[in-house]
């Protein structure tokens, strides 16, 4: 699979990242290298191998269903750029 400059721009758009033409070109080169690596790996015969969902061969630990967090809004909001009426304020995005 080859990646086009438009693909890069589309991905940037979905991730809300602003890229100019030079940055897009640079990203295209880097991403294309990664795709080459993927192609190499995909050439390996994996018949009969269970797909791996995690790099470590461990099982998820579960926590008991208990509330152990208290209200620390004031502390958390002290580092927020803008707050009002207990809300975090962000630039407006309406879908």
């Amino acid at each position: 699979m080859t990646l086009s400059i438009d693909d890069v721009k589309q991905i940037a758009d979905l991730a809300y990242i602003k890229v100019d033409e030079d940055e897009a070109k640079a990203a295209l080169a880097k991403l294309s290298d990664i795709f080459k690596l993927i192609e190499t790996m995909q050439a390996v015969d994996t018949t009969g191998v269970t797909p791996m969902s995690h790099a470590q061969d461990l099982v998820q630990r579960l926590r008991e269903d208990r509330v152990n967090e208290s209200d620390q809004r004031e502390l958390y909001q002290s580092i927020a750029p803008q707050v009002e009426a207990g809300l975090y304020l962000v630039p407006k995005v309406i879908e």
Partner: protein
Amino acid sequence: MQWEIVIGLEVHAQLSTQSKIFSGASIAYGAMPNTQACLVDLALPGVLPVLNRGAVERAIKFGLAIGAKINSPSIFARKNYFYPDLPKGYQISQYELPIVEGGDIRIQMGETEKQIRLTRAHLEEDAGKSLHEDFHSMSGIDLNRAGTPLLEIVSEPDMRSSTEAVAYAKTLHSLVRWIGICDGNMQEGSFRCDANVSVRPRGSETLGTRCEIKNLNSFRFLEKAIEFEAERQIEILEDGGCVRQETRLFDANKGETRTMRSKEDANDYRYFPDPDLLPVEIASDWIAQLQKTLPELPQTRRARYVSEFGLSAYDASVLTGSRELSDYFEATVKLLPAQAKLCANWIMGEISARLNKTDMDVVACPVAPETLAVLLSRIDDGTISGKAAKTVFDSLWQGEMEQQVDAIIDAKGLKQITDDSAIEQQIDDVLAANTQLVTDFRSGKEKAFNALVGQVMKATKGKANPAQVNAMLKKRLSD
């Protein structure tokens, strides 16, 4: 052309845990903004999600209740999209190996049962809430809801009308409450539906292009939205057009759906396994243990009501509409096992009507099952008529006379006259006073007979048993 509507539903059921799916913050409804949003929910760098056992348990219980496969391992995935109320930039959800796969729900359409297959049910976290008003062109973000555990329940496109879709949603709603995994509060958003709607010529096997209608938070809206949407699509097709695949919103005020986003701007969610979470292993003894905690399920009770009590499939489905109502019926019929139909009629009739009228839940019903059973046994043994029983029921509902059924019957003089000689006396009087009616009857006018029964009932102030009067009068007139 005859059109067929094809519907599949996605339901988000909020799980009734204490804490969030990946953090120890509370999920209690109605708290002040951001007072229940901890570092994990805020997505501050360096924090890690830890899965809530209670959420997994509830998902397994659901899977068991619908006869589905429980996947082990089951894995979590990141669903990537950008929105301010999703501070991580992705929602933790499941893609491959959802916790619950397959299974089915049986819905009751009149006297017939229909099977709706489920595709899957997966665990995921809810997003926060954006408030767009009043913040000088900024948006206010409340992350209390972020991380609330949800079970997304996806059906196959097995429904063919808005009525079936509503029946399915109601059955599912009743089931999640029945097994205690979701409180089902639709006003608070604990149970939300998205509907996938398409139409095709009747008889066709291929599916038409579908539209997804988002966030329907009442059964009425679900019904209205599907009806409007199907009409809209049929109109487009009949005008020779093509339905565009898109996501639509239902406007409850206007009763119509409108475009939210088309397929072209649809998000590519770039799912991939979440490296922050390991595969979840679900041991078979854990499943067996949870199986034991499940109550008798509505479908099992439905079948039992038909086989054990001889109720119709429809009655059985109404009575199992909620666990509380079903428990009320069980408690009543236990005391009057031979009169199951009478119990069912009263609970679906008087009791339900009165509860609806006063907007009361059956658990708060002022007439206890034990009291109802005493009342119904007085109809059964002929002490009072069904009509008089309604008068007694009124008194019971008002809490009169310490809800002593027999005392109320006595005080109101509602006892039926069943003594033959007393009725005979009244018949004599009525026949003597209504010779014209008797003549009419003998000359073949059937109506005259009913008039005579009415006269006897009137003479006894309605306290005679009508069936008995009928029989005795018939016998007298044929002599």
